[in-house]
């Protein structure tokens, strides 16, 4: 540096090596990353049981669930009850989901439909599902139709609400585009409305599936002669905590499995999306 500029100008600031910026996105997702939380919980539970901190009368050890589960499978009780429960949940989800999607389209795509349907749905939404069960029994009896109906009602709401709001959120600019391209009503529905509402529907389906399993637990403990809930209720009467635990684990696995299945479908169907978290 020469003397003149040194006199007039302040010394240049010393340079620091470029520090890596802290990335604010969550990073690169791992394929099976969502298994971490349940895995840690399982580990915690196993450690507590193995060290004797957890009384088996309070909550049996995880391996007890496995051995009892194996016994139940050998006897054939677990499979038969599982099939019954899964069939109930699936038919309830199917009925509720179909109704949810149909009504969401009716109220999302037509003004009159919206005025009529959406108000009723919002009103009914405030009533807890448990409060409806007495009426369901009154209307459908205490057999299978009542159980499926309660599950369907529980699954209906999230699917309706998410699909409806996704439909309402479809960009008006796409509607203009469809008009200038001269799309028919059917093409508009197929190319713009349905793909546009699909993310919302899938989100609703995830909530709806969870709601279906929850409703299943309730109706199966109410009055049933088969199903996982019946198995648990029976075990409670005989204080078989290990069988009760198997029931809980099965419920958890079913819920988790369904959620994973919908998420898998989401990844396949919504490949065009570029979002923060996959």
């Amino acid at each position, binding site marked *: 540096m020469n003397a003149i500029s040194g006199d007039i100008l302040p010394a240049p600031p010393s340079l620091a090596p470029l520090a890596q910026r802290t990335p604010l996105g969550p990073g690169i997702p791992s394929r099976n990353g969502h298994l971490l939380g349940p895995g840690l919980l399982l580990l915690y539970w196993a450690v507590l049981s193995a060290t004797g901190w957890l009384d088996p009368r309070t909550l049996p050890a995880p391996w007890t669930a496995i051995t009892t589960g194996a016994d139940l499978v050998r006897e054939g009780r677990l499979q038969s009850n599982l099939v019954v429960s899964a069939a109930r949940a699936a038919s309830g989800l199917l009925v509720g989901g179909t109704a949810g999607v149909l009504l969401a389209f009716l109220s999302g795509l037509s003004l009159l439909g919206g005025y009529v349907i959406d108000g009723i749905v919002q009103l009914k939404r405030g009533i807890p599902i448990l409060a409806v069960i007495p009426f369901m029994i009154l209307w459908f009896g205490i057999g299978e139709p009542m159980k499926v109906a309660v599950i369907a009602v529980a699954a209906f709401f999230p699917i309706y609400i998410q699909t409806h709001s996704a439909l309402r959120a479809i960009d008006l*600019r*796409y509607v*203009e*585009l*469809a*008009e*200038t*391209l*001269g*799309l*028919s009503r059917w*093409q508009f529905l197929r*190319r*713009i409305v349905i*793909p*546009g509402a*699909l993310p919302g529907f899938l989100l609703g389906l995830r909530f709806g599936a969870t709601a279906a399993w929850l409703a299943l637990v309730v109706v199966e403990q109410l009055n049933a002669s088969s199903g996982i809930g019946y198995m648990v209720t029976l075990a409670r009467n005989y204080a078989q905590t290990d069988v009760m635990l198997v029931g809980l684990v099965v419920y958890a696995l079913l819920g988790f499995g369904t959620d994973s299945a919908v998420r898998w479908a989401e990844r396949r169907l*919504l*490949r*065009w*999306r*570029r979002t923060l978290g996959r």
Partner: protein
Amino acid sequence: MSAAVRICDLKRTFTLKGVLNGVDLDIAPGEFVALLGRSGSGKSTLLRALAGIDHEAEGTGEIALPPRLSVIFQDARLLPWMRVLDNVTLGLPRDAHARALQALEEVGLAGRERSWPHELSGGEQQRVALARALVREPALLLADEPFGALDALTRIQMHELLRQLSQRHQPAVLLVTHDIDEALALADRIVMLDDGRISADLQVAGRGDRTLIALQRKRLLAMLGVT
């Protein structure tokens, strides 16, 4: 020559934005018209009326248009859930695929037909929109500030592309813009809109002659009240 577009005494009012106070305009087949005006002068209102998407407006007047018409918006307006090729053929019968591929090649996007829109740059997305407009072989192309959202270099490339394509396919073009240089570079004729009325209607003369263009530029700027 009979007109490709005829607009008679067109009036539009809105509760919120622009108005038209009796616009008369004829556009000849193959003619490239730039519609110039300040923001709020009614340029977009006129274009939306021609495109038939001004449902929220009230108004009177007559519009006669060719049946085959394409619109290009300021945003490329591609459907994010469709690949590039499906965006180009949107609403067309299945046998349009070959023509769509050809249109993509014409806009310089050969080989990108399987891309998702979000994988393209802004300029490339607008090229897809151009291909989507061209594949319909329009007799009239309506463009609402189609290059307004692009960077200056991409804009120059797009000008060149649009000029070539409109020369090759010869649609009548109505280009809405507030960019005088864009209007001078592309149009045969410049129509100026002010306060919902046509305030000037000029043929562009002497393309390639810098002094002539500079003179017209100065005149247009003065008309817009910029000196």
